[in-house]
């Protein structure tokens, strides 16, 4: 029997559903993380070109992928919230932003730590790097705009507009390596043409990608729950939780 | 016909008013009264659709004003605390442009007539920034003379006006009411306007 999704589109039922899912995702995230780190450090061989420095890849690539992916998801939910005036999806979008910004920051940070030994500089103004920086600005813009507006409904709508407008940046980041010839490598880790990369490396990287996924889901669900409580503090169902001592 | 049903207003963590009900019919005047900070301005802004009530509905000709949107706007003129005049434009330009933006283009003669009537003769070509406080207010009020809307919402229209001007505005309002228009207004000054039906709404 299919789950009744409409039921879970109300904050009250989503709240409890999310509560049940969080431990599940947390556990998977921890397991995958442990496995990924083990493969990354102890199974994957040393790269013949880059030496050990390449091990940054196990966080750099997952972080870079998550940073872009989360933005699209955030914009999607924000757009749904704007179009159908559903409270939950807007809250979801606000919950995604900080995690997305964090992954963007990690991608930038690890990238520049990787760049110093490989390219001899912390930072170059190439298209991929620059557009990732722009992505960070987009996240920060979204969050600051929402923070600057006191009324949450207005904040939701304003945030949704800017998130949707910002989506144009994602393809630019993704294709920047093809459009401009840059320092940043594109193909070396590509799945279909990667003989240069050991299978174990690829495996380690993919496990880390899934770990990041699970982590993001857990954290975002948790944050959504908090936002629900913050926003719906006056409603009957939260008062009910309160009486039972289940919400704080 | 303007109707308010169970209107409530919340500002910050304060509930300014709730359960406000009224029915304003053609030719009727509603005076909103109450001390400073009681929510008069907030109510007026709701009535013209600039903000939304925390609870309740506002109906215009039996339809919710949120649904009517610009059809409703075409029937309202709102003059608030802020006069919406541009300091750098002349008195005449201000009147012509603000009318045009409200969907009502007027000729220079019409504009001049209105300005003379409201007591700004000889000031038509001055930029608004050199005018006195009362004269600025008159520029804003001149809009009432040229607009053809039926519902006027006026937030303390008499502020800064001298005795002559108050009398003048009273005349304008009375004529509008006689012709079947409606007026919602606030004021801390005493003014008695004769109208087919007069209603007082006391806040707080």
């Amino acid at each position: 029997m299919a789950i009744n999704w409409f039921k879970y589109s109300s904050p009250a039922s989503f709240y409890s559903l999310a509560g049940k899912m969080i431990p599940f995702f947390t556990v998977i995230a921890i397991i995958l993380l442990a496995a990924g780190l083990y493969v990354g450090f102890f199974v994957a061989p040393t790269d013949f070109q880059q030496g050990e420095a390449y091990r940054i890849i196990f966080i750099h690539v997952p972080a870079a992928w998550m940073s872009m992916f989360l933005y699209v998801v955030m914009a999607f939910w924000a757009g749904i919230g704007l179009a159908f005036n559903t409270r939950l999806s807007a809250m979801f979008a606000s919950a995604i932003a900080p995690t997305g910004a964090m992954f963007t920051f990690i991608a930038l940070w690890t990238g520049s730590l990787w760049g110093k030994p490989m390219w001899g500089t912390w930072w170059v103004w190439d298209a991929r790097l620059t557009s990732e920086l722009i992505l960070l600005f987009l996240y920060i813009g979204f969050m600051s705009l929402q923070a600057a507006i006191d009324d949450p409904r207005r904040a939701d709508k304003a945030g949704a507009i800017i998130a949707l407008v910002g989506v144009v940046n994602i393809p630019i980041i993704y294709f920047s390596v093809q459009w401009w010839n840059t320092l940043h490598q594109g193909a070396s880790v590509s799945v279909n043409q990667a003989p240069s990369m050991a299978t174990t490396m690829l495996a380690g990287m993919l496990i880390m990608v899934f770990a990041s996924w699970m982590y993001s889901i857990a954290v975002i669900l948790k944050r959504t729950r908090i936002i629900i409580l913050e926003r719906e503090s006056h409603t009957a169902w939260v008062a009910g939780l309160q009486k039972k001592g289940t919400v704080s | 016909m303007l109707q308010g049903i169970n209107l409530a207003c919340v500002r910050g963590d304060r509930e300014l008013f709730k359960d406000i009900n009224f029915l304003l019919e053609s030719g009727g005047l509603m005076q909103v009264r109450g001390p400073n900070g009681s929510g008069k301005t907030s109510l007026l802004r709701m009535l013209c659709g600039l903000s939304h009530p925390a609870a309740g509905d506002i109906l215009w000709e039996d339809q919710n004003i949120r649904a009517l949107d610009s059809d409703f706007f075409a029937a309202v003129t709102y003059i608030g605390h802020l006069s919406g005049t541009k300091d750098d434009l002349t008195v005449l330009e201000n009147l012509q442009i603000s009318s045009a933006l409200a969907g009502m283009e007027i000729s220079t003669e019409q504009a001049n007539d209105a300005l003379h009537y409201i007591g700004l003769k000889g000031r038509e070509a001055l930029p608004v920034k050199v005018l006195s406080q009362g004269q600025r207010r008159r520029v804003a009020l001149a809009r009432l003379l040229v607009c053809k809307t039926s519902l006027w919402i006026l937030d303390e229209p008499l502020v800064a006006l001298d005795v002559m001007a108050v009398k003048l505005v009273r005349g304008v309002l009375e004529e509008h009411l006689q012709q079947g228009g409606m007026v919602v207004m606030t004021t801390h000054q005493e003014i008695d306007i004769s109208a087919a039906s007069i209603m007082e709404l006391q806040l707080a």
Partner: protein
Amino acid sequence: MNWSNISEFFSMGGYGLYVWGSYGVTLICIVGEILLIKNRHRTLEKQYGLTHDINKKETTHETTS
């Protein structure tokens, strides 16, 4: 096994600073994010004026929606 001893592991073939710098900051970010969320939760708890654990028992309120 790539490493014969622990110091070799930490030196990362001379790239220790870069590799551990990356992993360290990532760890800080993740821990920081979790702490921020905890903190936000705690503020909320204070606001509600109760100190029960939010996750302890919440089995029955689906019906309240």
